[in-house]
């Protein structure tokens, strides 16, 4: 079996209960079931996780580098979208 026939999967692992799943890497597998097992074998050998998600890389819609100007730059000059922009009244003291 050559690797060309295998799909690419992204692997997300939850390190402990209560934490979010974090992207840890990718791997090749023939189907989701196999991807899950390989994720276990490749990414949790040292007890890194309690839960695994795998998703076909092709199923992810990603923002493009070319779009970054129109996607992200416009928010640079809108500091009022940050809570720190606002002065707290004396009475509130700390939040």
């Amino acid at each position, binding site marked *: *079996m*050559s*690797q060309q026939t*295998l799909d690419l999967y992204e692997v997300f692992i939850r390190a402990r209960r209560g934490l979010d799943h974090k992207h840890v890497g990718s*791997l*090749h*597998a*023939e189907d989701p*079931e*196999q991807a899950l*097992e*390989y994720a276990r*074998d*490749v990414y949790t*050998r040292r007890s890194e996780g309690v839960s695994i998600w795998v998703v076909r890389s092709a199923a992810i819609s990603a923002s493009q580098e070319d779009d970054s100007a129109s996607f992200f730059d416009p928010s640079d000059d809108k500091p009022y979208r940050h809570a720190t922009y606002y002065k707290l009244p004396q009475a509130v003291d700390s939040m």
Partner: protein
Amino acid sequence: MDNREAHVADSQAETLRAATVSYAVRLGDDALVLGHRLSEWCSRGPFLEEDLALQNVALDYLGRARMYYSYAAELEGQGRTEDDFAYRRDARQFSNLLIHELPRGDFAFTMVRQLLVDVFNTLWLEQMQRSADQTLAGVAAKGIKETRYHLRRSHEWALRLGDGTPESQQRMQQAVADLWGYTHEMFEMDTLEQSLVAAGIAVDPRPLRAPWLQQVTSILTQATLSVPQDGWAVRGGRSGYHTENLGHLLMELQSVHRAYPGVSW
């Protein structure tokens, strides 16, 4: 209890202890030899992910071998260590089942062997967890979790390759045919094991054949592979009579120790 009775009881306990040592060494040999065969795939797997997955299985077996040998060494009380069992015995002194020492062959052969052994091990370890020997029961309790995962893998590979391309199907069927005669030895019991079964320490493997055959038949059928007739059987591993392959395997496995006796890092 008078002195004579006490003496008889002592010698019975002594016999049982010696038998348990031999039994632990047998199980250690099974694990070491199969683990080594799997480790031969390191860097030669069909692709990276499977390479790593196979080595995880190999390491599970190596870990099991260490537990069995360490226990044998401790129980024997002669100052030997796990390394003495692994590196300082010749083929004639190894007592693993022959199925474990056969060369790794192609990937189909490796996976069919794993399937046949994994199904057996799940059945055997399940019962072994209730051994009267606390250490052997403990090793089994750890091993059963590993083995259930091994079986999940070998089961899926059997389906994938058996019900795959004409070539993969043919290779799988060939592997089943080549291995079948070596499976009978798993269900045999000699007098040593008989005495341990009577003491509740070992598992009688004979009744495991029926459920094993049922499970293996169901998986092979699902994988569009046929179950061979019981035409031939090879045995001898438990009494030290091996195929020529074990000598070659040990030559490699023990080469570093032979070149640098007692070396450590």
